[in-house]
Each structure stands twice: as C-alpha cells, then as structure tokens.
C-alpha cells in the first residue's frame, strides 16, 4: 500500500513538468467537437460508404483515370521546369536550411519565438505536407540534403540492400515523432533541433555516399519518403522534366508499397497524429494513470503511443485477413496488405489537417516576426519584427466545420481508392464488391476514431 502511494506520488511529480512543457510550444485553442457534430460526421461517413459500394456494384469500370494534361506546354508552367528555375529553387531550399540551422544555435532560445523551431516544425513539416498535397513532390527538387549530396558528387560503395526496404526512413520517422511528441520537449529546444539536424545531415550524406544518392533518398531519407507519399494525392505530377495535371488521388494507384516497412510508415503517419490528439484528453489521462507500475511519465507515454500504433495496424490486418477469406484469394495476406496500403494515405492527411491545420494557421504566423530577426539581435530585416499573432484567425465553429469536412473528404477518398484497388486485384465480380466490406469497416473505423478523438473532453492543466 505504502509503495503504491509512493509510486502515485512519483508519477504525479513527474507528470506535472511534462504537461507544462507540452504546452510550451504551439498551443492549440481548439474546443472539442460537440457530440451532435461527431454523431453527424460518423453517420455521414457510413451513408457515403454504402453509396460508394452501391455505385461500384453497378458500375465496375472507372475509366479515364489516366487522363492528364501537360501543363508545361504553356510558357507560364514550363518556366518552372527550366534548369535555371530548378537551380533557384534548390538555392532557396539551401538558404532556408542554413538559416534554420544557425538561428537554432544563435537565435532566441524560446521555442515559440525562434525561427528554427517555427520554421522546421510548423512551416516545413506541416506547411510542407499541405503544399506537397496541392502541388506535388517539389521536395524532390528543393531537398537541401540532396543538393548538398549532389554538390559533393556521386559515389556508391555498396548496393543498397533491398531487403531493408524503408527501414532507415521508418527509424528516422519514429525518431522525428519522438522528438516532437514523446521527448518531453527536447525537440522544441532550438539548440537541440539544430544539433539533431546536423546529425541528420551527417547521416544522410554518409548514407548517400555509401549507397548512392538515388537509393538513399528513395529508401532512407524520412522527408523524401513522407512527402512522396503525400504528393501522391496531388493533382500535379512531375515526370521527365514535364509538369502534368491529373485527377487528384490517382497517384495512389501508381505502384504499390513494395515493402512491409512502407506500410508501417503509413500506419505511423496515422497513429502518431491520433496519439497527439488523444494524449491531451481525459481518456488518455485515465490510461496513463492506470499504468501506475511504470515510474517514468515518458515511458507511460511511449506505451500509449505504441498501443495506438498497434491498434491501427491490427484493425488494418484483421480486415485484410477477412478480405482474403471472403474472396478466397491465392495472394498472401502480406501482399494484399501492401496492395491496399496507399488507400490509407488520404485518411492520414485528413487526420493531419483536422488536428494541425489551426496550429499551422496560428503558430505559423510567428514566422513573420521571426524572419525579421532570426538571430535575436534586434534586427528588423523586413519590418515585421513587431508582428503580433492573430489568435482569432478561425473561430471555434469554423474549426469544427473544417475538421469535419477534412475527415469526411479523406474518408470518401480512401474508400474510393480502396474500391478501385479491389476491382483491380480481385476482378470486377459481384463478390469482389462484397470483399470490400472489411476494408469499408476499416475506413469507417479510422474515421470514427479520428472524430471520436476530436470530440473528447480535454484534460485540465
């Protein structure tokens, strides 16, 4: 008994600073979704899902998905594909990278004021995601690490071992999330951020000179993998120096996840956002309190994080297994799981938008004063150093509506893509449509989890 009280005391003591630091950078002023809106969202998701099933049951051949328009025929667009323009974009990427590195070291050490922390976590990671979803994989061009690697020249000592797949990128992705959400504010400290970026630079340059630039940036660079997945949603694609306009989402139908680690990467995209939303709710607090046998607050968080990751993976694999039973397919469970992996990307982006878009709009404004004085020397380069953040840029009502729309559109897109993939894999038979019920259940499940988290009462400080 005494021991229990001691553990409670210790866990409580270790809890308080962690909760405080969680709010130190990038506060969200979001109210939980009202219950009626949550119910409506869930109902709408189910209605739409069954309508889509009905649609595919009667019209099994979606045509003309390959249609695209070459934008670079026009002068305005071809300008962006010119070598000179590409060189300018690369230079911009490199300059921003250098400013981020140096301002993290020498700038203000307040995370919410510093240029590096605001630029990296908000503008680059969140804004970059939204940009790639709109205009395609421009990271491929501006990636400063790639520019540096190209500048150092091509070299290749070993052939990249293909059985590793995306494991390096997956490991870096987990580390990135650890810095962001699990480290108790380590990643929010500007000097730490710069230090980690320097380490990452060394590893990336090392990796690309060992295994070749092409393979390393394809399998090893977490940002390249992340943005490549997101840009599959974009209506704009780049190929052989040409800019093409296509239907949005069709990028998800090109190729499949070729390695199980890429599926894990996508599940991590979903589950990490879900974790971030969930961790500030009462339910998470209850869960964490129940883990009284573990002392450190960070380990409790880590357990919660992995539980959510495994839950998302488990739901997905169960559905894949059911699907195989229904169709009696010869394809292995692993292969079916890989075939449908990309259909989860729209939900991953929807989660991200529903959870982080207001943070991007509000905390993102801090980049305006920060860019005028990146080194905290009292400069006013662009005359904006006195800019004050407008917190009321979006009211609670508008935020709720936006969250609902993002989640629903993500849901519809995912169901749509999963159906096309099913028709392609199992043929257009009637029972192939039936085989989609488990997949539909997964999508409804993920959508409901997303909405449920948004509707949870939040923890008090």
């Amino acid at each position: 008994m005494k021991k229990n009280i001691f553990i409670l005391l210790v866990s409580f003591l270790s809890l308080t600073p962690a909760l405080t630091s969680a709010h130190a950078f990038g506060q969200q002023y979001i109210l939980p979704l009202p219950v009626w809106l949550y119910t409506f969202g869930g109902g709408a998701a189910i209605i739409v899902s069954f309508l889509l099933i009905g649609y595919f049951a009667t019209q099994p051949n979606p045509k003309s998905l390959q249609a695209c328009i070459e934008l670079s025929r026009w002068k305005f667009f071809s300008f962006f594909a010119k070598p000179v323009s590409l060189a300018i974009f690369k230079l911009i990427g490199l300059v921003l990278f250098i400013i981020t590195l140096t301002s993290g070291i020498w700038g203000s050490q307040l995370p919410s004021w510093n240029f590096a922390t605001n630029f990296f976590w908000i503008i680059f990671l969140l804004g970059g995601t939204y940009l790639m979803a709109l205009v395609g994989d421009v990271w491929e061009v501006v990636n400063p690490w790639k520019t540096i690697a190209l500048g150092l020249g091509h070299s290749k000592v070993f052939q990249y071992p293909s059985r590793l797949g995306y494991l390096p990128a997956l490991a870096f992705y987990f580390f990135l999330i650890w810095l962001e959400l699990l480290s108790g504010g380590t990643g929010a400290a500007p000097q730490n951020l710069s230090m980690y970026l320097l380490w990452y630079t060394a590893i990336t340059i090392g990796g690309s000179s060992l295994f070749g630039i092409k393979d390393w940036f394809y399998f090893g660079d977490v940002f390249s993998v992340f943005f490549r997945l997101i840009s599959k949603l974009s209506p704009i694609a780049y190929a052989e120096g040409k800019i093409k306009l296509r239907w949005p989402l069709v990028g998800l139908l090109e190729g499949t996840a070729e390695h199980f680690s890429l599926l894990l990467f996508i599940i991590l995209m979903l589950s990490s956002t879900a974790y971030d939303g969930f961790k500030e709710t009462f339910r998470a607090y209850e869960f964490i309190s129940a883990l009284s046998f573990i002392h450190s607050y960070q380990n409790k968080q880590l357990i919660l994080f992995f539980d959510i990751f495994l839950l998302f993976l488990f739901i997905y694999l169960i559905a894949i297994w059911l699907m195989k039973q229904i169709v009696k397919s010869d394809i292995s469970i692993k292969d079916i799981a890989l075939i449908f992996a990309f259909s989860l990307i729209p939900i991953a982006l929807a989660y991200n938008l529903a959870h982080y878009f207001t943070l991007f709009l509000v905390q993102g404004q801090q980049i305006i004063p920060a860019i005028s004085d990146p080194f905290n020397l009292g400069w006013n380069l662009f005359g904006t150093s006195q800019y004050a953040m407008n917190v009321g840029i979006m009211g609670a009502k508008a935020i709720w509506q936006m969250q609902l729309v993002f989640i629903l559109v993500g849901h519809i897109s995912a169901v749509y893509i999963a159906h096309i993939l099913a028709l392609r894999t199992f043929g257009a038979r009637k029972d192939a449509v039936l085989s989609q019920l488990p997949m539909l259940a997964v999508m409804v499940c993920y959508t409901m989890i997303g909405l449920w988290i948004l509707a949870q009462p939040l923890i008090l400080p």
Partner: protein
Amino acid sequence: MQNKSIGYVIVGLALIAGLFALLRPKQQDKQSPNVIPPPASEQVVQSFNLVIKGKKLISGPKTIVLKEGDKVKITITADEAEEWHLHGYDKMVVLEKDKPAQIAFTANLTGRFIYELERSSTEIGTIEVRPK
C-alpha cells in the same frame, strides 16, 4: 453512365443534408424573435472568483465556460507575488501577495484558453468560450 454517378451524388448529398438537419441542435434565440437582447451596456457581467494557493487553484471553477460575446470579470487572489496570464487573449494581471486583483474583458475569441502563473509558468486552469 454519367447520369448514374450524378444520381448517386445527389442522393448522397440529400441524405447528408437530412442527417444534418435532424441532428442540429435547435437554436433558442433564433426561434423566439420577440425577445430582444438587452443592449450591450446592460448585459450581465459574469463574475468569477479564483483563489490560488501554493500554485494551485483552491477555490473557483477550474474551467470557466463562457459564450461568445459574454462580459466577464475575474477576481484573482494568490498567496504570492505573481503574474496571471491568459493565453490567446494575452491578458496579464499583476498579482500582489494576498491582494485580490481584477480583470474584466469581453469574450470575443472562441476556443479553449489556458491561464497560468506567468513567472513560474504553472498552468492553473482554462477558459472555454463556446461559439454562439
């Protein structure tokens, strides 16, 4: 074929709109147009009393729930010299030891705002402003 897809979209939109109308909470003020809201100056001011001891709230609501446009007056008493800071609204009150300090404002921003003791950055409670 094209007509069929359009049909599905229309049925879908109709069902969703129906569900929305069904679930939407009734808005009282819109249903009774005879009731004229009191002019701003006569609006009731909501008062709250917060007592902070040992960096913890010992009296007063941990979550102050307001409606957009409400006028609010908060009295804060702390057992040490501190600064009371409300995030988002960025309101600041200097607190002297055991001396009640007051702040009054209109809740124009909707959302969930945390208030803290600024000097020790201890989060004490939240103010929730619900939309109209």
